[in-house]
Protein backbone atom coordinates (compact mmCIF):
# COMPACT_ATOMS: atom_id res chain seq x y z
CA UNK A 1 0.00 0.00 0.00
CA UNK A 2 1.47 3.34 -1.00
CA UNK A 3 1.83 6.28 1.38
CA UNK A 4 -0.86 8.19 -0.52
CA UNK A 5 -3.43 5.41 -0.46
CA UNK A 6 -2.94 5.08 3.32
CA UNK A 7 -3.83 8.74 3.64
CA UNK A 8 -6.95 8.43 1.49
CA UNK A 9 -10.28 8.57 3.19
CA UNK A 10 -13.38 6.47 2.48
CA UNK A 11 -16.84 7.82 1.63
CA UNK A 12 -18.04 7.88 5.26
CA UNK A 13 -15.22 10.21 6.26
CA UNK A 14 -15.57 12.25 3.08
CA UNK A 15 -19.27 12.79 3.65
CA UNK A 16 -18.53 13.69 7.28
CA UNK A 17 -16.08 16.36 6.06
CA UNK A 18 -18.65 17.60 3.52
CA UNK A 19 -21.05 18.12 6.42
CA UNK A 20 -18.36 19.65 8.63
CA UNK A 21 -17.39 22.24 6.03
CA UNK A 22 -20.99 23.52 6.04
CA UNK A 23 -20.49 24.50 9.68
CA UNK A 24 -16.81 25.35 10.02
CA UNK A 25 -13.60 25.81 8.08
CA UNK A 26 -11.70 22.61 7.36
CA UNK A 27 -8.05 22.35 8.32
CA UNK A 28 -5.59 22.00 5.42
CA UNK A 29 -5.13 18.27 5.86
CA UNK A 30 -8.88 17.54 5.88
CA UNK A 31 -9.46 19.93 3.01
CA UNK A 32 -6.83 18.13 0.91
CA UNK A 33 -8.13 14.67 1.82
CA UNK A 34 -11.62 15.69 0.80
CA UNK A 35 -10.42 17.32 -2.41
CA UNK A 36 -8.58 14.16 -3.46
CA UNK A 37 -11.51 11.96 -2.54
CA UNK A 38 -13.96 14.08 -4.52
CA UNK A 39 -11.74 13.90 -7.60
CA UNK A 40 -12.18 10.15 -7.72
CA UNK A 41 -15.64 9.55 -6.22
CA UNK A 42 -18.69 10.54 -8.24
CA UNK A 43 -21.13 9.52 -5.49
CA UNK A 44 -19.51 11.85 -2.97
CA UNK A 45 -19.48 14.64 -5.55
CA UNK A 46 -23.24 14.18 -5.88
CA UNK A 47 -23.51 14.05 -2.10
CA UNK A 48 -21.61 17.33 -1.74
CA UNK A 49 -23.94 18.97 -4.23
CA UNK A 50 -27.02 17.70 -2.40
CA UNK A 51 -25.76 18.86 1.00
CA UNK A 52 -25.33 22.38 -0.38
CA UNK A 53 -28.85 22.12 -1.78
CA UNK A 54 -30.14 20.94 1.62
CA UNK A 55 -28.80 24.10 3.30
CA UNK A 56 -30.53 26.31 0.74
CA UNK A 57 -33.76 24.34 1.01
CA UNK A 58 -33.76 24.60 4.79
CA UNK A 59 -33.46 28.39 4.52
CA UNK A 60 -36.59 28.41 2.35
CA UNK A 61 -38.30 26.11 4.84
CA UNK A 62 -37.46 28.47 7.71
CA UNK A 63 -38.98 31.46 5.92
CA UNK A 64 -41.98 29.57 4.54
CA UNK A 65 -42.91 28.07 7.86
CA UNK A 66 -43.26 31.50 9.46
CA UNK A 67 -44.36 33.76 6.59
CA UNK A 68 -45.48 31.43 3.81
CA UNK A 69 -48.84 30.34 2.55
CA UNK A 70 -48.59 27.07 4.45
CA UNK A 71 -48.84 28.57 7.90
CA UNK A 72 -50.77 26.54 10.39
CA UNK A 73 -53.25 28.05 12.81
CA UNK A 74 -53.97 27.63 16.46
CA UNK A 75 -57.33 25.92 16.75
CA UNK A 76 -60.12 28.35 17.79
CA UNK A 77 -60.65 26.31 20.98
CA UNK A 78 -56.99 26.54 21.94
CA UNK A 79 -56.90 30.25 21.11
CA UNK A 80 -59.97 30.82 23.30
CA UNK A 81 -58.52 28.72 26.14
CA UNK A 82 -55.23 30.63 26.12
CA UNK A 83 -57.08 33.94 25.79
CA UNK A 84 -59.24 33.26 28.83
CA UNK A 85 -56.20 32.11 30.79
CA UNK A 86 -54.49 35.42 30.01
CA UNK A 87 -57.65 37.33 31.03
CA UNK A 88 -57.76 35.48 34.34
CA UNK A 89 -54.13 36.36 35.00
CA UNK A 90 -54.72 39.99 34.06
CA UNK A 91 -57.93 40.33 36.10
CA UNK A 92 -57.70 38.01 39.07
CA UNK A 93 -60.85 37.98 41.21
Amino acid at each position, binding site marked *: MTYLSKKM*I*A*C*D*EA*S*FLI*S*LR*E*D*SRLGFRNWLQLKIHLLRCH*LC*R*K*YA*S*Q*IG*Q*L*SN*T*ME*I*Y*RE*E*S*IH*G*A*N*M*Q*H*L*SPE*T*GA*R*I*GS*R*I*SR*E*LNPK
Partner: protein
Amino acid sequence: MPEENKHILEPHRWVERYGDYLFNYAIVRVNDREIAEDLVQDTFLAGLKSRDGFRGDSSERTWLTSILKRKIIDTYRKKYTSKESSFSEIEPTTLDGDFYKGEEPMRGHWLEGKGPNSNSFLPEGELEQAELMEYIRRCIENLKPQLAAAFIMKMIDDEDSETICKELGITASNLWVILHRARLKMRDCLEKKWLN
Protein backbone atom coordinates in the same frame (compact mmCIF):
# COMPACT_ATOMS: atom_id res chain seq x y z
CA MET B 1 -34.43 54.52 22.58
CA PRO B 2 -36.58 57.70 23.03
CA GLU B 3 -39.61 57.13 25.25
CA GLU B 4 -42.10 57.84 22.45
CA ASN B 5 -40.56 55.07 20.29
CA LYS B 6 -40.67 52.44 22.98
CA HIS B 7 -42.88 49.42 22.46
CA ILE B 8 -45.61 48.66 24.93
CA LEU B 9 -47.19 45.36 25.90
CA GLU B 10 -50.84 44.65 25.23
CA PRO B 11 -51.34 41.15 26.64
CA HIS B 12 -55.10 41.09 25.97
CA ARG B 13 -54.28 41.13 22.23
CA TRP B 14 -51.43 38.60 22.26
CA VAL B 15 -53.43 35.57 21.12
CA GLU B 16 -55.00 37.42 18.22
CA ARG B 17 -51.75 39.11 17.17
CA TYR B 18 -49.08 36.51 17.82
CA GLY B 19 -50.87 33.21 18.51
CA ASP B 20 -50.46 31.79 15.00
CA TYR B 21 -46.95 33.18 14.54
CA LEU B 22 -45.67 31.64 17.77
CA PHE B 23 -47.54 28.41 17.09
CA ASN B 24 -45.83 28.05 13.70
CA TYR B 25 -42.49 28.97 15.20
CA ALA B 26 -42.95 26.21 17.78
CA ILE B 27 -44.42 23.49 15.59
CA VAL B 28 -41.55 23.66 13.11
CA ARG B 29 -39.17 23.07 15.98
CA VAL B 30 -40.99 20.45 18.05
CA ASN B 31 -43.01 18.73 15.32
CA ASP B 32 -45.93 18.10 17.65
CA ARG B 33 -49.15 20.12 17.59
CA GLU B 34 -50.04 19.53 21.21
CA ILE B 35 -46.58 20.39 22.55
CA ALA B 36 -46.51 23.48 20.32
CA GLU B 37 -49.86 24.67 21.71
CA ASP B 38 -48.64 24.17 25.28
CA LEU B 39 -45.46 26.07 24.48
CA VAL B 40 -47.47 29.02 23.13
CA GLN B 41 -49.58 29.11 26.28
CA ASP B 42 -46.52 28.81 28.54
CA THR B 43 -44.84 31.61 26.60
CA PHE B 44 -47.76 33.99 27.11
CA LEU B 45 -48.00 33.13 30.81
CA ALA B 46 -44.25 33.57 31.28
CA GLY B 47 -44.54 36.88 29.42
CA LEU B 48 -47.24 38.03 31.81
CA LYS B 49 -45.13 37.13 34.82
CA SER B 50 -42.08 38.96 33.57
CA ARG B 51 -43.82 41.91 31.91
CA ASP B 52 -42.44 44.36 34.46
CA GLY B 53 -39.00 43.56 33.04
CA PHE B 54 -40.01 44.52 29.47
CA ARG B 55 -38.09 47.69 28.63
CA GLY B 56 -39.73 48.34 25.27
CA ASP B 57 -36.53 48.26 23.23
CA SER B 58 -37.72 45.33 21.12
CA SER B 59 -41.16 44.66 19.68
CA GLU B 60 -43.68 42.58 21.60
CA ARG B 61 -43.30 39.81 19.02
CA THR B 62 -39.51 39.72 19.29
CA TRP B 63 -39.73 39.66 23.06
CA LEU B 64 -42.31 36.86 23.12
CA THR B 65 -40.34 34.89 20.52
CA SER B 66 -37.23 35.04 22.69
CA ILE B 67 -39.24 33.60 25.60
CA LEU B 68 -40.61 30.85 23.35
CA LYS B 69 -37.13 30.04 22.04
CA ARG B 70 -35.91 29.53 25.59
CA LYS B 71 -38.86 27.25 26.30
CA ILE B 72 -38.19 25.15 23.18
CA ILE B 73 -34.57 24.66 24.24
CA ASP B 74 -35.76 23.63 27.72
CA THR B 75 -38.05 21.09 26.06
CA TYR B 76 -35.13 19.64 24.07
CA ARG B 77 -32.94 19.56 27.12
CA LYS B 78 -35.51 17.81 29.30
CA LYS B 79 -36.22 15.30 26.57
CA TYR B 80 -32.67 14.43 25.54
CA THR B 81 -30.78 14.50 28.76
CA SER B 82 -32.97 11.78 30.25
CA LYS B 83 -31.61 8.27 30.56
CA GLU B 84 -34.22 6.91 28.15
CA SER B 85 -33.31 9.18 25.28
CA SER B 86 -29.83 10.55 25.57
CA PHE B 87 -27.34 11.99 23.12
CA SER B 88 -24.88 9.37 24.32
CA GLU B 89 -26.83 6.71 22.41
CA ILE B 90 -25.65 8.27 19.12
CA GLU B 91 -22.46 6.40 18.21
CA PRO B 92 -19.58 8.85 17.84
CA THR B 93 -18.44 7.43 14.50
CA THR B 94 -18.83 8.57 10.91
CA LEU B 95 -19.53 4.99 9.84
CA ASP B 96 -23.33 4.83 9.84
CA GLY B 97 -24.20 1.22 9.07
CA ASP B 98 -27.41 2.26 7.29
CA PHE B 99 -25.36 3.91 4.55
CA TYR B 100 -21.82 2.51 4.45
CA LYS B 101 -20.21 -0.88 4.18
CA GLY B 102 -18.71 -2.04 7.43
CA GLU B 103 -16.43 -4.83 6.18
CA GLU B 104 -12.94 -4.57 4.70
CA PRO B 105 -11.75 -4.06 2.03
CA MET B 106 -14.72 -1.77 1.14
CA ARG B 107 -15.24 -0.44 4.66
CA GLY B 108 -16.65 3.10 4.58
CA HIS B 109 -17.83 2.94 0.94
CA TRP B 110 -21.48 3.66 0.10
CA LEU B 111 -23.77 0.63 0.36
CA GLU B 112 -25.47 -0.36 -2.88
CA GLY B 113 -28.42 1.98 -3.51
CA LYS B 114 -27.61 4.21 -0.55
CA GLY B 115 -25.53 6.80 -2.34
CA PRO B 116 -27.08 9.83 -4.05
CA ASN B 117 -28.60 9.32 -7.50
CA SER B 118 -27.90 12.77 -8.86
CA ASN B 119 -26.65 16.23 -7.97
CA SER B 120 -30.12 17.19 -6.77
CA PHE B 121 -32.59 15.52 -4.44
CA LEU B 122 -35.43 17.42 -6.04
CA PRO B 123 -37.33 16.20 -9.07
CA GLU B 124 -36.80 17.88 -12.42
CA GLY B 125 -39.25 20.57 -13.45
CA GLU B 126 -41.71 22.68 -11.50
CA LEU B 127 -42.15 21.86 -7.88
CA GLU B 128 -45.00 22.84 -5.61
CA GLN B 129 -43.53 24.77 -2.69
CA ALA B 130 -46.19 23.38 -0.37
CA GLU B 131 -45.26 19.83 -1.33
CA LEU B 132 -41.58 20.41 -0.65
CA MET B 133 -42.33 22.00 2.71
CA GLU B 134 -44.50 19.04 3.68
CA TYR B 135 -41.77 16.55 2.70
CA ILE B 136 -39.14 18.43 4.68
CA ARG B 137 -41.44 18.39 7.69
CA ARG B 138 -42.00 14.66 7.35
CA CYS B 139 -38.29 13.95 6.90
CA ILE B 140 -37.44 15.93 10.04
CA GLU B 141 -40.15 13.95 11.82
CA ASN B 142 -38.40 10.72 10.76
CA LEU B 143 -35.10 11.76 12.32
CA LYS B 144 -34.17 10.43 15.72
CA PRO B 145 -35.29 13.17 18.13
CA GLN B 146 -31.72 13.89 19.23
CA LEU B 147 -30.62 14.37 15.62
CA ALA B 148 -33.66 16.53 14.92
CA ALA B 149 -32.98 18.84 17.89
CA ALA B 150 -29.40 19.59 16.83
CA PHE B 151 -30.32 19.80 13.14
CA ILE B 152 -33.17 22.26 13.82
CA MET B 153 -31.03 24.46 16.04
CA LYS B 154 -28.34 24.57 13.37
CA MET B 155 -30.33 24.71 10.15
CA ILE B 156 -33.52 26.50 11.17
CA ASP B 157 -32.45 28.63 14.13
CA ASP B 158 -29.02 29.27 12.63
CA GLU B 159 -27.47 28.93 16.09
CA ASP B 160 -23.70 28.78 16.34
CA SER B 161 -22.14 25.48 17.29
CA GLU B 162 -20.92 26.70 20.67
CA THR B 163 -24.46 27.65 21.71
CA ILE B 164 -25.91 24.34 20.54
CA CYS B 165 -23.27 22.35 22.44
CA LYS B 166 -23.87 24.39 25.58
CA GLU B 167 -27.66 24.14 25.39
CA LEU B 168 -27.75 20.43 24.61
CA GLY B 169 -24.83 19.50 26.86
CA ILE B 170 -22.75 17.84 24.14
CA THR B 171 -19.18 18.25 22.89
CA ALA B 172 -18.27 19.81 19.55
CA SER B 173 -17.18 16.40 18.19
CA ASN B 174 -20.56 14.93 19.17
CA LEU B 175 -22.30 17.78 17.40
CA TRP B 176 -20.34 17.30 14.15
CA VAL B 177 -21.23 13.61 14.05
CA ILE B 178 -24.87 14.29 14.95
CA LEU B 179 -25.19 16.90 12.17
CA HIS B 180 -23.45 14.59 9.71
CA ARG B 181 -25.91 11.81 10.47
CA ALA B 182 -28.88 14.13 10.34
CA ARG B 183 -27.82 15.43 6.91
CA LEU B 184 -27.22 11.90 5.63
CA LYS B 185 -30.73 10.91 6.62
CA MET B 186 -32.44 14.09 5.46
CA ARG B 187 -30.84 13.89 2.02
CA ASP B 188 -31.73 10.23 1.69
CA CYS B 189 -35.29 10.81 2.88
CA LEU B 190 -35.89 13.74 0.51
CA GLU B 191 -34.48 11.91 -2.50
CA LYS B 192 -36.60 8.84 -1.78
CA LYS B 193 -39.76 10.94 -1.43
CA TRP B 194 -39.57 11.95 -5.08
CA LEU B 195 -38.42 8.57 -6.36
CA ASN B 196 -41.39 6.96 -4.63
